[in-house]
């Protein structure tokens, strides 16, 4: 009966450990999310986003005011260390706030809006990169998303039976907390953590493969131009409807933030933009949502990018400085 004894021993150990899991989870999450100086998930990990959102929803008040950065790899700081990315630089400039770099490679405005909607009560200020209205189809499996949004953004709907079973299984704390524990302990999902360590060994042996691009840390001359569109007049209802029609997701995001009396800066990194795009439209948009939401234009000289899009460390520092509230 040795197998029986082993199985029973394993079950007893799990049962004995289970009451301590919530306490352990609170400790590691607080350490990970509240004490970090330049928080971001390693490897721009989509799957670690769920635990961060769950934590913020569980703990709507932090020790410091919270600022969340949302966007794609430019905001994440691809090729840069966490402290060198825009959110990391911003954290250094504003140590009185807790900055979360929640940007994920490929995230568009639709994804940022849905994430913002899930955490708006727990955040004081958002910095969001402007993009298309698309949302990552997996989001509904990772964060709470309303049924109407699942349909509107064409997300993959979680299986209702599976979701029901999962909620029933959450009586087992270790099962319920497994992703949150992984994210808090490793600062990313376990697979990203192992991959990151293995990658470090690989680079030590053979320094090859994708790595911070040449020039990512090189100093450069020039300045980042910041454009703030302002209008002295409040737009009429008709004008508001017109702007809303032009960019529904942008408008919904602004409505969400202003309805909760939070603050948001939407960053427009040059390039062609569809929807609300002319100077007059942007000025009217900002006037409609002042003082809660503002679209800010950033023109970044090529010298501050190491490829066609991604910022150098110097570029990220200058952008962070330009974002002073």
């Amino acid at each position, binding site marked *: 009966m040795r*197998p029986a004894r082993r199985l029973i021993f394993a079950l007893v150990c799990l049962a004995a450990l289970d009451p301590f899991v919530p306490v352990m989870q609170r400790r590691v999450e607080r350490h990970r999310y509240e004490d970090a100086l330049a928080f971001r998930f390693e490897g721009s990990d989509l799957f670690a986003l769920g635990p961060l959102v769950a934590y913020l929803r569980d703990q709507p008040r932090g020790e410091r005011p919270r600022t969340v950065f949302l966007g794609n790899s430019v905001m994440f700081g691809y090729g840069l260390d966490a402290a060198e990315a825009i959110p990391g630089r911003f954290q250094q400039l504003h140590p009185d706030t807790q900055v979360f770099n929640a940007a994920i490679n490929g995230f568009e405005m639709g994804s940022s809006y849905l994430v913002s909607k899930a955490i708006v009560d727990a955040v004081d200020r958002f910095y969001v990169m402007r993009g298309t209205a698309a949302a990552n189809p997996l989001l509904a499996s990772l964060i709470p998303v309303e049924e109407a949004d699942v349909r509107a953004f064409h997300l993959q709907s979680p299986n209702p039976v*599976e979701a029901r079973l999962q909620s029933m299984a959450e009586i087992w704390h270790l099962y319920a907390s497994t992703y949150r524990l992984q994210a808090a302990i490793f600062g990313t999902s376990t697979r990203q953590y192992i991959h990151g360590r293995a990658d470090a060994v690989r680079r030590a042996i053979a320094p*090859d493969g994708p790595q911070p691009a040449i020039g990512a840390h090189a100093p450069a001359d020039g300045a980042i131009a910041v454009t703030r569109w302002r209008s002295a007049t409040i737009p009429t209802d008709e004008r508001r409807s017109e702007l809303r029609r032009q960019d529904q997701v942008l408008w919904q995001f602004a409505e969400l933030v202003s309805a909760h009396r939070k603050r948001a800066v939407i960053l427009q990194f040059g390039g062609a933009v569809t929807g609300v795009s002319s100077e007059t439209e942007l000025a009217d948009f900002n006037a409609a949502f002042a003082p809660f939401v503002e679209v800010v234009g950033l023109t970044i000289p090529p010298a501050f990018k190491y490829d066609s899009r991604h910022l150098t460390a110097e570029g990220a520092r200058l952008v962070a400085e330009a974002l002073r509230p």
Partner: protein
Amino acid sequence: MILTLRFIVLFVLCGICFFSVPRAWRPLTLAFWGAVFYAMFAGAFLAIVLALTVLTYFAGRRVVAWTTGALVVGLLYYFKVRAAVFDIGAGAPSSATILIPLGFSYLSFELLHVVIERRRGRIPVPSFPDLLAFVFFAPARVAGPIKRYPDFTGAVHGAEWSMDNLYAGTIRVMVGLAKKLFIADVLALTVAERPDVRSAAHAWVVLLAFTFQIYFDFSAYTDVAIGFSRMLGITLPENFRRPYLAPNIREFWNRWHITLSMWVRDYVFLPAGRGLFRTRLRALPTVIAAISYVVTFLVVGAWHGITAAFLLWGLYHGVLLAAYHAMRAKMPPSIAAHPLYRSRAADACGVAVTFLLVAIGWVPFMTSWDGASRLLALLFGAGR
């Protein structure tokens, strides 16, 4: 799919029923819960699978056997072509299930095995519940292994509840989970660097990552299937036996996806060889073997997907096996008997060469046709 809570709940219910009902009802119990599982994950195709099962049951008659065989092969071809049109490769099983009935590649080979063996007289008239259990057995439905009807039926009827089985099955499932989550999924992150590959060294890293990812991923599913079956006291055939330590390509195919290798050996390679022996090629056994290998592995490639990349992969392995066979057949006895040829050093060299050839063979598997050309060029220092 077999790692979801839905499956686990179904499996527990199935296990309780399986050991609670009289022994004679066990196949029907497995069939019922298997059908529930199939309906839950691929409901739209349940009717097709049921219809094929009924046809297979009546495959003792020549006309029905030929009709069933043609239908199974035709459907397999249709679904593979449909998947190819939607550009579904080996790396996208979840999307593929939308277009291909759940585990249809495995199911089709299992049904063909029953049809052929019935015609050969090696399987007597099967009991319908046994056949349903064979078709719908949930743990092996998604990713094999490819079962054999007599072995499976014997295992079901002889299944006994024991703590040893539960323990061994649980451990096997956990080993599979660990392989999948901690090794295969981590390697997948390195494989995902493929579009950014710019140098030969990086291309080799990505290729090696894929070589191990596909092994750990596939063998993980086999471990989970075997583990769950073991909990029910049912032994499934093994599918992998340290394939990357094979000293030659023939041995590799005796260790890699063993149940598929055995299937194509029995139903493609040997019949093809026998057929060729009845032709003028009779005097050229090496040529017969070479043609049989190539034909067999073209079938293996097509079984994975009817795309140029999979067919190329099949052809590559067919040619390798044919070349190995010819080398062995034409090797002078003095070399074959030489102590160096039989030494451990020679074995080690054989393992290294076989591994390298197999790894290069994975290139078409991991990417599109264009991507494969680019990656091959980079691997051998000819591209950027």
